[in-house]
């Protein structure tokens, strides 16, 4: 869409109280009604993919974990899965089960974080404070297992670092009981509170066809009735041994997204209990060569926000040739922009947070699609010249 100078534009971002990370949204409003929307990303581009090419396979593990502060484990898992596939290494089942356990704990932590943020965007600060207080429980569990609250660093190439001892398992069980009880309460709040329903029901409704058309993924798509979940469609780790159910909702509106995410939290709690009770015995690690054989691999995992895809190319050396990451947030932006039109300005923060965006995740490359006459499109020679003169 092109900018129209006659429109009244409300900018949200890059610095705005509604956004916890920088991005720029422009909403064209007629009174309170939104008539157009555009997004500009890339404020937190960090050059991680390029940086990966300069590091060894093991060093990259830690780099990939730092793509996202919320779903750090799932990035490392996707990366290790790809590298192990290239190396042709079979990981011990116990290690895979522990990876799955961490991933599901992470999902609980991510969904509870999202619940708080989304409630805050809707002006429901009490729910925000409560859900973040209770989220500490799952973060404490992660800390007890790994020693870290945010970057657990559980993965190694070829296994995991930490074992689940029976004492730890008992603590996790205890924490899960508390989390389950609290999430039942939150489910009750989001389904019965009149003002909350007033802000979420029939807001940003996306039909199944539209979700398919716009390429929505993750809980955003599942709230529109698209039963798509990598954990079920293409099981990795031990997801075939400890399967999860795909949680869908038919309403397609913001309310549905709340319900789907809380139900997914319950499902995560259930599957963690199952893993703790039937965790396979065996080693935690296996040996992975320092040089990974040449080849290409694609690994897909289900991050809390949707499908996360890694493409890894090796040329047989100690360092990867190319690592391409496609994060779920990037796939869902089009749904926000197309659903925004016709809604009220007051719905925008909730609609934005409804897809659970993670800006630093998706800001890794920018491609400007503009006309040839545009001064923003530079030839390589011009760019190089600019670089030389800038530092002269």
């Amino acid at each position, binding site marked *: 869409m092109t900018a129209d100078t006659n429109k009244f534009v409300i900018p949200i971002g890059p610095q705005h109280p509604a956004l916890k990370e920088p991005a720029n949204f422009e909403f064209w409003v007629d009174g309170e009604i939104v008539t157009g929307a555009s997004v500009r990303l890339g404020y937190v581009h960090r050059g991680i993919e390029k940086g990966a090419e300069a590091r060894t396979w093991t060093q990259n593990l830690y780099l990939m974990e730092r793509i996202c502060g919320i779903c750090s484990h799932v990035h490392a898992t996707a990366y290790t899965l790809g590298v192990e596939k290239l190396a042709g290494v079979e990981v011990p089942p116990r290690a895979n089960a522990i990876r799955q356990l961490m991933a599901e704990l992470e999902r609980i932590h991510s969904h509870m974080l999202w619940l708080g943020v989304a409630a805050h965007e809707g002006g429901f600060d009490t729910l925000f404070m409560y859900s973040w207080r209770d989220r500490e429980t799952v973060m404490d569990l992660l800390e007890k297992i790994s020693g870290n609250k945010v970057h657990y660093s559980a993965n190694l190439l070829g296994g995991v670092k930490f074992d689940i001892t029976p004492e730890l398992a008992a603590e996790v069980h205890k924490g899960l009981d508390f989390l389950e009880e609290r999430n039942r309460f939150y489910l009750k709040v989001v389904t019965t509170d009149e003002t909350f329903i*007033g802000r979420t029901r029939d807001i940003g409704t996306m039909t199944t066809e539209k979700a398919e058309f716009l390429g929505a993924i993750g809980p955003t798509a599942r709230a529109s009735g698209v039963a798509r979940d990598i954990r079920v469609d293409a099981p990795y780790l031990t997801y075939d041994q400890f399967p999860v159910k795909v949680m869908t909702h038919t309403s397609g509106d913001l309310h549905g997204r709340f319900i789907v995410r809380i139900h997914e939290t319950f499902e995560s709690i259930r599957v963690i209990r199952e893993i703790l009770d039937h965790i396979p015995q065996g080693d935690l690690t296996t040996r992975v060569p320092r040089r990974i054989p040449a080849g290409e691999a694609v690994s897909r995992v289900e991050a809390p926000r949707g499908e996360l895809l890694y493409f890894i190319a090796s040329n047989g050396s100690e360092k990867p040739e190319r690592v391409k990451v496609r994060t779920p947030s990037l796939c869902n932006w089009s749904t926000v922009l197309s659903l925004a039109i016709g809604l009220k*300005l007051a719905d925008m*923060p909730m609609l934005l947070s409804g897809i659970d965006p993670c800006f630093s995740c998706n800001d890794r490359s920018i491609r400007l699609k503009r006309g040839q006459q545009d001064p923003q499109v530079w030839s390589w020679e011009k760019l190089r010249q600019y670089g030389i003169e800038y530092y002269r």
Partner: protein
Amino acid sequence: MNLSLPPILVLLVFPGGLFLIASGLIYQWADRKLVARFQNRIGPRFIQPLADTLKLLAKEEITPVGVHKGLFFALPVIALAAALTAGLYVPLSGFRPAASFRGDLIIALYALSVLTLTMGLAGANTISRFSLVGATRTLTQLFSYEAPFLLSLLGPAIAAGTWQISEINTYAGQNLWLIIAQPIGFLVALIGLMGKLELPPFDAPEAETEIVAGAMTEYSGRGFALFRLGKDVELIIGLTLVSAFYLGGLGNPLEFVLKTLALLLVLALLQTAFARLRIDQTVGLWWRAGALLAVVQLIAIVLGRNLGTIF
């Protein structure tokens, strides 16, 4: 209780002026602390509102491009002056109002509306887009809660047979608490007060996640401090009015503190219990439910009085 002080003291120190501002800050703290505790937070220390105000007063005031300079400086002063003027007519801390005449209820409410009006104007004065949307919402909300709130305060006035705040206060103190006689009126007055103070869930005019600080976005330093003080004074006046009318009058300072704090507790609880209403939902709620309820209460009072005289 009666108090005879020189008029200049009444105006500047007690119960108007300094005392009013100080108690406004304390009530702001009480409100923030209560909301914080309900939300499982620690909340600010009691000195925080004063520290905020002093900090703002000491800060550089930035005049944005595109504003009418005179209005930009005058509006905060008018806002605080209007709120302080309203304070002269209400029985603050249980004493007789500093000034009193027939129909001062209307004047007090009008002065409070001027405060909101100046905030709306202050937002419309700038070219900031957040301020403009905030100003539109502030004024829209003004038009929605004002009539029901006024009607709900007219109930006690009709029951007492006078539109003089001090006499209504005396009447309320001598009779059955009006919260029992006119429960609907009390409900509308309470919610109306929340709308007037732009407290959650009626805080769409200053919804931070949408329009930053609404009409106040471009204000910093002195102007913002004065607007905030005006808001604090409005809070204490609103609490005084509603508790004087509906909670059995305010006869002495102890009664004043207990009743207004009890009311503030209820307000804080209501602030934490809901998600923010959109501006269209606020308007809908007020005109569909609020105004209707207030009118029903008014009809009930009039009928009751007339039937009472017939039988």
